[in-house]
């Protein structure tokens, strides 16, 4: 069982897209921000509506109704697919096919909020999110939607420059991939850790006496297709 919670959706072209579902904490925080925004809007409408008597009260009640049920629907149907709170935390609502959320799904997931809220403070919603790998609440389950991170984190960068050198022996595809992936993480790992890992691959570097990191980076450069001398 893999540790990460990547969710793969297949496109009609046969490509598997990975989505990164957002867990409980960012979603609760986003909900908190949205609650603040809603209260803000409500207070603003109150200020405006108060002088208008019964008509103003009607406006206030209708505003309350719309904020309670349709505030998320409206924002999820915009191009960003997220309420202000979700946008703030880099989240987005998508269909579980990876497509933008449809109006039917947005309405379904937000009307079923009432079921998630039961018995109090989103009890069922929280339990459902904690039990599932894709962190869907009940409304998401029924609507077929998913709350994901909008941007993916770049853990791997360009390979750092090093004089290319052919490996000492033929490498299997998996070994090649491992070495290139190691080199891609060079900017994120400490030099000591990078070296520690490089020493494990001593057997593939052409010169067993040289600096392990530098040697292996050279092999990685060779593997991605650079040939000869300094890049």
């Amino acid at each position: 069982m893999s540790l990460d919670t990547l969710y793969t959706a297949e496109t009609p072209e046969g490509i598997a897209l990975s989505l990164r579902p957002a867990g409980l904490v960012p979603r609760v925080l986003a909900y908190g921000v949205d609650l603040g925004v809603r209260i803000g809007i409500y207070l603003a409408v109150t200020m405006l509506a108060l002088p208008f008597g019964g008509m103003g009260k009607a406006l206030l009640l209708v505003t309350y109704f719309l904020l309670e049920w349709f505030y998320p629907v409206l924002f999820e149907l915009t191009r960003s697919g997220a309420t202000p709170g979700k946008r703030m935390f880099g989240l987005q609502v998508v269909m579980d096919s990876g497509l933008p959320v449809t109006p039917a799904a947005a309405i379904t997931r937000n009307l079923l909020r009432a079921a998630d809220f039961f018995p109090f403070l989103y009890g069922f919603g929280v339990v459902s999110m904690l039990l599932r790998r894709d962190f869907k609440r009940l409304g998401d389950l029924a609507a077929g939607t998913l709350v994901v991170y909008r941007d993916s984190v770049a853990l791997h960068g360009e390979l750092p420059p090093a004089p290319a050198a052919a490996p000492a022996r033929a490498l299997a595809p998996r070994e090649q991939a491992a070495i290139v992936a190691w080199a891609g993480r060079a900017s994120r790992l400490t030099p000591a850790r990078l070296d520690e890992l490089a020493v494990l691959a001593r057997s593939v570097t052409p010169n067993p006496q040289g600096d392990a990191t530098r040697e292996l980076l050279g092999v990685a450069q060779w593997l991605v297709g650079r040939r000869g001398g300094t890049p």
Partner: protein
Amino acid sequence: MTPLQFETRNAPLWQELETALDRAEGKKPDKEARDKYTHKGKPPPLDGARLAELYRRSCEHLALAQARAYPIHLTQRLESLTQRAHRLIYRRHDYGLARLKHLVLVDFPQSVRSHRWYLLAATLLFAVPLLAVGWATWRDPGFILHLADAQQAQEYDRMYDESARALGARDASTDWQMFGFYVMHNIGIGFQCFAGGLFAGIGSVFFLLFNGAQIGGVAGYLAARGHGENFYSFVVTHGAFELTAIVLSGAAGLRLGHALLVPGRRTRLDALKHAAGDAIVVVYGVIGMLVAAAAIEAFWSSARWVMPQVKYGVGAACWALVIAYLGWQGRPLRGGDVSNAG
């Protein structure tokens, strides 16, 4: 082909796709791209066919990059490009007024008819307690105390009393206020009836029974206390929309519950998703009907200057209208061309 060759050869294509996506998503072009266009005036319009082609190519490249275990930063770049293009290309466009018209004229009544057994069950769940409790309170007004406390019962008396004219004394601004209240309160009840279906239908059953008993209790009590005419002439018109809508949303909720309990040949989750997709069309209609009901309740039902007989007449017409709409609207033309009827 080495990753470097692959990247050098295809980078212009990815760059083109990226620029096209940026434009389609409404991002401002970066300075470099802007400078390129300054001497040509406006940038050329987005070419959909070209975009689709670029998308297919990038899908191809992504598959190759994954299969050949190319460096991860390369795969990731392709993946995010593909994902963005996928979202753009498969986005649905057919929303708007035409879609809404089709929903009102065809989809909603058709969807109601396709849920007819759920509708029957919901109607029974609502009407049986309504009639039973109504009869019980009519026989013995004290029965209302099982459902409401004495203070509330007095409140009902006061509201529909001939002499107090509690309803007749309302002015226009109070009408508006009540409209707001009805929208918030009644549509909330409708949504609860629907959402309750997610708990194997128990929630919907509960809300239907509860609301049925509550409404029956009030109706029976007021009839027994001699405020019958005031009450019935008040509720008859908007009841056509409101009671129907509550039963409909209960039926939509029962559909969800049934899908969970008896998923058939799908998994439970899949059955639920499928059922929710069908049932939500009913809920769209419910929203519309409840807004109509709130408007009627606030501005017409409460108008004391209208004779009760007129209200009964209009009410009967509304009931007939609602039933005819749900029963017959949106059927394909008999013997007609299917393509015309749809």
